[in-house]
């Protein structure tokens, strides 16, 4: 092979190889997992006086999921109102003191535990904190 031919072959080879190698390195890095730490954000729900004992308020988290925050008198409990069966919204029945899911007649108690029906798991709870006069809730972080 002439020197010219060798040189051109080398140039082509190096150019291609380096490009493909760099691209491959990017793709390999792509495969490695990102830290999957579940980050949560503390959100202000409202004034304590807005949720007197026995009363509840509805709230939406950063993902648009609805929840219900009730003041039992002793503490605040925050429950997701998404039925754990197939995802319908449950609603509170005052007289029975139960959460009711109309889709397939599921029932949860005021702490979210399953009482009757097809739901396989209790309603998801959220951590609530009261600081001063503010009621706060911890929800999953969402970035834009």
């Amino acid at each position, binding site marked *: 092979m002439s020197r*010219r*031919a060798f040189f*051109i*072959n080398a*140039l*082509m080879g*190096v*150019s*291609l190889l*380096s*490009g493909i190698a*760099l*691209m491959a390195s*990017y793709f390999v890095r792509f495969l490695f997992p990102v830290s999957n730490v579940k980050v949560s*954000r*503390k*959100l*202000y*729900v*409202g*004034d304590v006086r807005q949720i007197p004992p026995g009363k509840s308020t509805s709230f*939406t*988290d*950063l993902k648009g999921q609805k929840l219900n925050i009730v003041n039992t008198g002793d503490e605040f409990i925050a429950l997701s109102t998404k039925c754990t069966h197939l995802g319908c919204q449950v609603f509170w029945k005052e007289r029975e003191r139960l959460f009711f899911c109309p889709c397939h007649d599921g029932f949860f108690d005021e702490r979210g535990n399953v009482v009757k029906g097809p739901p396989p798991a209790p309603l998801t709870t959220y951590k609530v904190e009261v*600081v*001063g*006069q*503010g009621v*706060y809730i911890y929800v999953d*972080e*969402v*970035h*834009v």
Partner: protein
Amino acid sequence: MSLNTKKIVIAVIGLFFMGALLIVGGIESNKRVLGKKAYIKVSATSENCVDCHTVTSPSLVEQWRDSKHALKGVGCVECHAAESTDADAWEHEGTLVAVVVSPKDCSKCHADENEQFQASHHADAGKIIGSLDNVLAEVIEGDMGRLSLNGQSPVAINGCWQCHGSVVKIMADGRPDPATWPNTGIGRINPDGSKGSCSACHSRHRFSVVVSRQPDSCGKCHMGPDHPQKEIYEESKHGIAFKAFKQDMNLSAQPWRAGIEYSAAPTCATCHMSATEELPVTHDVGMRISWNLRPPISEKIDAKAIKAGEQVVSWEDRRDNMKAVCSKCHSENYVDGFYLQFDSAINLYNEKYGKPATAIIKMMKAGGVLTSTNFDEKLEWTYFYLWHHEGRRARHGASMMAPDYTQWHGFFEVAERFYIHFVPEVREACEDRIRQGGDVAKAAKVVLAELDSILNREEHMWFLGKMTGDEKARRKAAAEEFKKRYAQ
């Protein structure tokens, strides 16, 4: 196209491809640095406010959006909502709001900070009605009559109250009196009765802690000829270090503790408020101060309370608090030595200038040598300058290690004021009264005698040309020494 041409084309496009990949790599690393924006969600009512105010006051909304409040879901109505019983409540686009957000409103979530703040002297800053300064702004400099705004002196409205805080008045139509609002003075008296304004240091609507930790925040009010703390800080080594290493100050950290999150330099907040490993943050700025350097005669900070029979934290304990902060960077001997130096300067001011001048003025007022109206005679202005301006500069300069303020802006000018203005003016006023005769003449004579006894004290004797032989010899020797040293 020949084979070789094809190969060269491949090589060239390959290079371009490499270039594009390098750009990709660059974008990827920048992506890491820039980070992501968090999703902001607030109540439906606040969303309403945002929708309209994004158009009418866009920067206000954007500042709020960058704030920690927005991140936490605290929007507009969470702070601005008002009850119908609130004096400053008014109906705005279907919601009852109040423009003034007082520390009481903030205390819904920031109860501890408010409690500390309400106990502090900052919260009392608005109680200057009737004080000398207020008379200056309202009567002497300004006017509360035909040149007033709603009966208030424009000097007070634009000057004093903007730092000290106004008393926010609500007019018959439910809107604040423009003479009293807008105002974010730190001692503002709010319509709900609470004292103060958190916005004074924690500027709205971003409420960034970075702003409040900046010396410039304090410097909005703590500056100028009568209390140049900001200038003093900037002269001092503390301020120099801050300026040099501001990027290492980690100003947005929470918590922000000297010696842990940052070590480069102290700021105003560092010493007077902020946390260390042992000390919590306090919004009561008096908790680490031992001297009260404000009045004509400095006294320990708990003296007034003790006289009133109140139980407060002792000045010794407060000094220990401050020393706890100093010791983050300085050794015990260093700190103790500084306090000895500082105390000696205050003591000198008190004994040489503060006490004598105040005693003289008191005597002159009591005896009728000075009229009962304040500031209508030259001597009163001279005395005011002496303790309120130069006297404070000297004391504050010593308190925060600014030698030039202590000396040239301080004691030098104190001495000049005292010897070249105060003393001759006292003599002139008294001699004037003596010439007029009567009771006042008797009082004036007593004053002159007192002045004489003051000037015969060891520290003032030089003025009367009464230095002892020994003293004179020592001064001469010192002068020779200096000449020799500096002639080299």
